[in-house]
């Protein structure tokens, strides 16, 4: 699915514009949506899922204008959405919950629903617990129930809002592998604060800040923003000035900093940037 966003603005009463004249084209595949809190990521996702309408501007998905109610309704038939805060009904089992979502997605054929439910629960590794009440499942398992429900109906567009927040490292890796697999034959929009997840799974990234686009392009391009500006300092006593500190590693001689700057302290060694460096370099440019 090709998504085209054209001069999108969203105002909420009494608050600064959540999205401010945003224009961006998103290709098919895995797309990382990153930015600080309040950047407008969740608002953009809600607009892309047809839940809320923009104040001005348009969104086209495969050429279909989402300002038309009929197009929004049609989109929802081919959409999988995992909101940031989803608490599946805890008295239901994963099997029952997915069946419920299947009905909401208007999969009227019971046999088809059951087949999909079983396949998806196997895919997300919940087959063994599919008949247990959700209240007894771990946070990671609940999150997997969340992704399984998003996949009901075999959606061509999958929108996931911070899916790995609060997951342990093992669950996170499992989850992003699953997302990467899903992104092979559909569009997946992944909003997250965990840049490593984007670096590992998304070939395309869009950075938002204060409701505006700060970067939109290949992930490699964002990493390249920090090329020639990423340094490892020698162990020093005080943090370097005029530099964005990416991380700090204490050593017996002092602290060794990974920084993004044009003016590194003496003795610093240039290093290959990663997505975090690129993102911070972009943030310090604003």
């Amino acid at each position: 699915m090709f998504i085209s966003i054209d001069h999108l603005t969203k105002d909420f009463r009494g608050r600064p514009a959540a999205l401010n004249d945003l224009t961006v084209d998103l290709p098919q595949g895995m797309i990382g949506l990153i930015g600080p809190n309040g950047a407008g990521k969740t608002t953009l996702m809600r607009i892309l899922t047809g839940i809320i309408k923009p104040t001005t501007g348009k969104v086209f998905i495969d050429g279909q204008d989402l300002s038309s109610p009929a197009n929004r309704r049609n989109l929802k038939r081919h959409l999988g959405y995992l909101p940031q805060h989803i608490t599946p009904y805890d008295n239901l089992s994963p099997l029952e919950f997915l069946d419920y979502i299947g009905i909401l997605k208007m999969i009227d054929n019971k046999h088809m629903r059951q087949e999909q439910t079983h396949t998806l629960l196997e895919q997300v590794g919940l087959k063994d617990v599919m008949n247990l009440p959700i209240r007894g499942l771990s946070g990671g398992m609940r999150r997997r129930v969340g992704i399984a429900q998003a996949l009901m109906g075999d959606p061509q567009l999958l929108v996931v809002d911070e899916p790995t927040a609060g997951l342990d490292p093992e669950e996170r890796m499992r989850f992003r592998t699953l997302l990467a697999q899903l992104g092979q034959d559909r569009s997946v929009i992944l909003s997250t604060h965990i840049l490593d997840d984007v670096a590992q799974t998304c070939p395309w990234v869009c950075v938002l800040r204060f409701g505006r686009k700060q970067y939109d392009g290949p992930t490699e391009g964002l990493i390249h923003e920090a090329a020639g500006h990423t340094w490892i300092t020698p162990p020093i006593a005080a943090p370097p000035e005029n530099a964005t500190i990416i991380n700090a590693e204490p050593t017996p001689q002092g602290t060794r900093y990974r920084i993004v700057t044009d003016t590194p302290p003496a003795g610093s060694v240039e290093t290959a940037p990663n997505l975090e460096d690129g993102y911070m370099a972009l943030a310090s440019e604003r």
Partner: protein
Amino acid sequence: MAFVGIQLKRLYRLVLLPFILTAGILFVGFLLEGIWSPGRIRPLMMVLTQVPVIAAGLSTAFVLNGDPIIELAESTPTGWRKVQVTRMLIITGAFLTAVGLLFIGLHMMRLWPRDMGWVSIISPVGSIFIVNCLVFLIAVLTTSMPTSSLAPIAIWLFLCFVWDPYITDPVRQRLIPLFIAAAGAIFGWNMCGDAERNVVKVAAL
């Protein structure tokens, strides 16, 4: 049908509640019929027949609030309004049926208080319809369980102590508030169709 079926399955305990209440009240009436005179039983029935009205409002408030997947429902072609309205209709339908049966039973036993014939059925049926329509409106407006739960009690108090004692004709007594409640429900129905409001209001809580 699958959609109504799954909602029924989720709400089956609350759907059974009015029938249990009806059976209980009829059983009390049946037991007392052999001991007390109808004139003595009717005041008690006047109190007991109000229980389903309040229970209907509280049940409606309960099913219309606190759902954790509003945003998810809005992202589906079904939408949140259809979920809410279906739940309200299921609960209202169950209470209306049960209270209809209650009326028939007590009317046949000549125990229905202030019985003016079959037309008196409008009193309990109308009360439930009025209370549930207004609770629906309040639940949509406030998205708050405590407020929605207080609403049926307030509406019932108004009907019992302010409205009913002065408007004695059973048709006028129920039809006027019924029209107001129906208008309120239509307003609530319209408001419930605003996905942005549903999602943003709940997210802000």
